[in-house]
């Protein structure tokens, strides 16, 4: 069975869906691997490293013509054209955004598997790319905040004056939020965090940070560990109660997301105005409209003296590790997709396992 991996189509994406390490494990299992030349370059994985573990370096066309095509993010229409019918295509499909790729694939008989549809069950944790990449985003965004912040994050008492610890507020305590808390605490920040799901309080404290508790009259716990959207009154109340906490903050990191819904507005312009000059807001929800209306997708802007960061692809900034984690996720997923046959691996019925069943896209609803 041939697996093809190509360079990412999305602009600025440095990750790659395969690392030499994983490639070695896959060839060991009997897969033959095709990699577009230079696909790993941006993540510091070089062609000769791949070649050394038995990967065939080919041009993009050839790689796309494999039985299983693996990418980090969605392909473009040209790519679809180069794939053959019956092929399996695995990537982070960004399904909620308006999409023409999926219909094109389905029309051609290509079977797309969406990494973001992997269910959040214990067994699937090792395939859960959403988690593995969120984790990286949570770490990396704090590094970014530290780089943009023109002061010390830790407390520092010196003979040339003292710096108070930066007050860091994390909004939304999912996987990324937790890792952001951990990283900000490591750097010595005075860290506060808030989430609408009440069970997060204990988690926040389990990292030594302080939980902000607001009484907004309803809980935000939804299904499968995700949050649900709040009522309009609750939203307003939340914004109002948060305002004072946020105005005192020097670094705010927002990660509040509700799947396939616009991100909730948590930081209003008023609050930004009240913040100290030089403060930093990192909006991890920028891709979904942002938790702060002032952030601009993909960009760093300064408004009212506050630096607003709207980057949308933090994992790509850590392309080496992010690729390694993603490739591991794919490897674990392949593990439940195939049986070991005599002439190498044989594909199973993807509807048999609840994980592949959930991730396989069959309709465009």
């Amino acid at each position, binding site marked *: 069975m041939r697996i093809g991996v190509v360079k990412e189509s999305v602009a600025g994406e440095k990750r790659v869906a395969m690392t030499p390490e994983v490639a070695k494990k896959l060839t060991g299992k009997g897969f033959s691997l095709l990699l577009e030349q230079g696909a790993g370059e941006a993540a510091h994985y070089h062609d000769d490293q791949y070649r050394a573990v038995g990967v065939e370096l080919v041009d993009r066309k050839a790689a796309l013509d494999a039985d299983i095509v693996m990418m980090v993010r969605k392909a473009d229409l040209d790519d679809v054209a180069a794939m053959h019918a019956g092929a399996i295509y695995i990537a982070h499909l960004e399904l909620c955004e308006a999409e023409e790729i999926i219909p094109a694939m389905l029309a051609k008989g290509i079977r797309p598997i969406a990494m973001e549809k992997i269910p959040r*069950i*214990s*067994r699937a*944790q*090792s395939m859960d790319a959403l*988690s*593995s990449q969120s*984790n990286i985003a*949570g770490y990396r965004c704090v590094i970014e905040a530290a780089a943009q912040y023109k002061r010390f994050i830790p407390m520092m008492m010196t003979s040339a004056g003292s710096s108070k610890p930066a007050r860091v507020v994390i909004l939304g305590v999912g*996987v990324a939020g*937790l*890792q952001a808390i*951990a990283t900000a*605490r*490591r750097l010595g920040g005075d860290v506060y965090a808030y989430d609408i799901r009440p069970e997060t309080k*204990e*988690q926040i*404290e*389990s*990292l*030594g940070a302080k939980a902000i508790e607001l009484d907004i009259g309803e809980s935000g716990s939804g299904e499968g560990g995700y949050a649900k959207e709040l009522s309009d009154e609750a939203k307003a109340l939340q914004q109002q109660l948060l305002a004072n906490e946020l105005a005192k903050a020097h670094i705010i990191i927002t990660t509040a997301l509700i799947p396939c819904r616009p991100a909730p507005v948590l930081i209003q312009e008023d609050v930004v105005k009240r913040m100290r000059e030089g403060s930093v807001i990192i909006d991890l929800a920028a891709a979904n409209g942002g938790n702060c209306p002032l952030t601009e997708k993909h960009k760093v802007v300064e408004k009212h003296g506050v630096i607003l960061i709207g980057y949308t692809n933090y994992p790509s900034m850590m392309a080496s590790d992010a690729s390694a984690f993603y490739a591991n996720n794919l490897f674990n997923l392949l593990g439940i997709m195939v049986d070991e046959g005599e002439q190498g691996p044989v594909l199973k019925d993807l509807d048999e396992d609840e994980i592949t069943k959930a991730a396989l896209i069959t309709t465009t609803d």
Partner: protein
Amino acid sequence: MMEISANVQAIAYLVSAILFILALKGLTHPASARRGNYLAMAGMAIAIVATLMGSEVRSYGFILAGVVVGGVIGTVIAMRIQMTAMPQLVAALHSFVGMAAVLVAIGTFLNKQADGLLNGVLMGELSAGIIIGAITFSGSVIAFGKLQGIISGRPVQFKGQHLLNALLAIATIGFAVHFALTESTVSLAIMTLLAFILGFTLIIPIGGADMPVIVSMLNSYSGWAAAATGFTLQNNLLIIVGALVGFSGAILSLIMCRAMNRSIFNVVFGGFGTAAVEGDGVADAAQKGVKSAAIEDAIYWMEDANKVIIIPGYGMAVAQAQHSMKELMEQLEARGVEVKFAIHPVAGRMPGHMNVLLAEADIPYENVVEMDEINPEFATADVVLVVGANDVVNPAAKDDPTSPIYGMPVLDAGKAHHVFVIKRSMRPGYSGIENRLYYQDNTSLIFGDAKDVSEGMVNQLKGAAH
């Protein structure tokens, strides 16, 4: 047999008493425990020989018969009995001491009566010996029955139980007084009977979980019985040893109650709000048949271990026990124990949760090992200490296809010699399912907050160094 003078005998008795004291002291620490037992044996041998060589003992027939038969029976039982049946055996042996004390007192009564040497004080002392001995006997028989499973281990409580006991006690004492004043053998007999009944009614209400304390308490009673016998016989050795056993037994019961967080009062007078005092977890666990352990038990196995593997989980994070973990590691390493931290990839609530905390506590990276690397090592670990982890050590993931975590790789904690789990209750972890590891034979649960418990461990280890 060569006879020794009363003075020599007295000195021999003193030596014997000293040996017993040193023996008990020896038993307080593992290093000196075996020596302690030997000292006690020597003390007993000296006491018996000195008695036999004394001027009072003149006929040896029955004595020889008794010692030989008793010795053989005792030896055989002690050699044959299974380790797990030890508590029962000890209870049974107690009953013998109690009965022996009763018999000695009655024998003394008969002898003194024959010699016309009875007086009030003596008869009072005799009565004390008989009453305490009888209570010890029947109480121990009940304890034996409960431990052996002949009698139900459940606390048997009934209305008016305390009133009944009080009435019985008063009646017993009443007949004792009457006996002392009148020498009435009938009173003596009734008193003895009542005491036997009292022993029964005192112990029967007490639940099986409290039996260890009760056995220790009965031990104390048997000491008092011996001391009372000493008074009647004016034998100072019996007095010393009796008081020693009596008091130390009482203290040991107290210590055991404290360790179990029980009130000694409730245990001894069984059934005073039994359930109320117990911690949530302990009660729950006992009910479910899970073994619970004290900090000391874990320390006992850890401090001499070759390898200890610590498995931290979300509970360690909640308790913020990482700094104590570091200290625990240092203390154990100082004793030559190899300590490793086994990190499950999904331990905690975020990727790398444990790594963050262990790094904060400055635990060297070399001691932190991934699941795949450590799993083969569990079989060679003397102790696994699970600190607030649950799902990540749940064997159901491997062998129970119906479990929601089936298929997730887990840490093979259960393969170690001893597994100690620190958690606060029997509540499940994130995935909400029961953990069969807790019911394994080699697993004990230490209930409590992870930080408190691990600090307790560090304390114990530091204390032990003195």
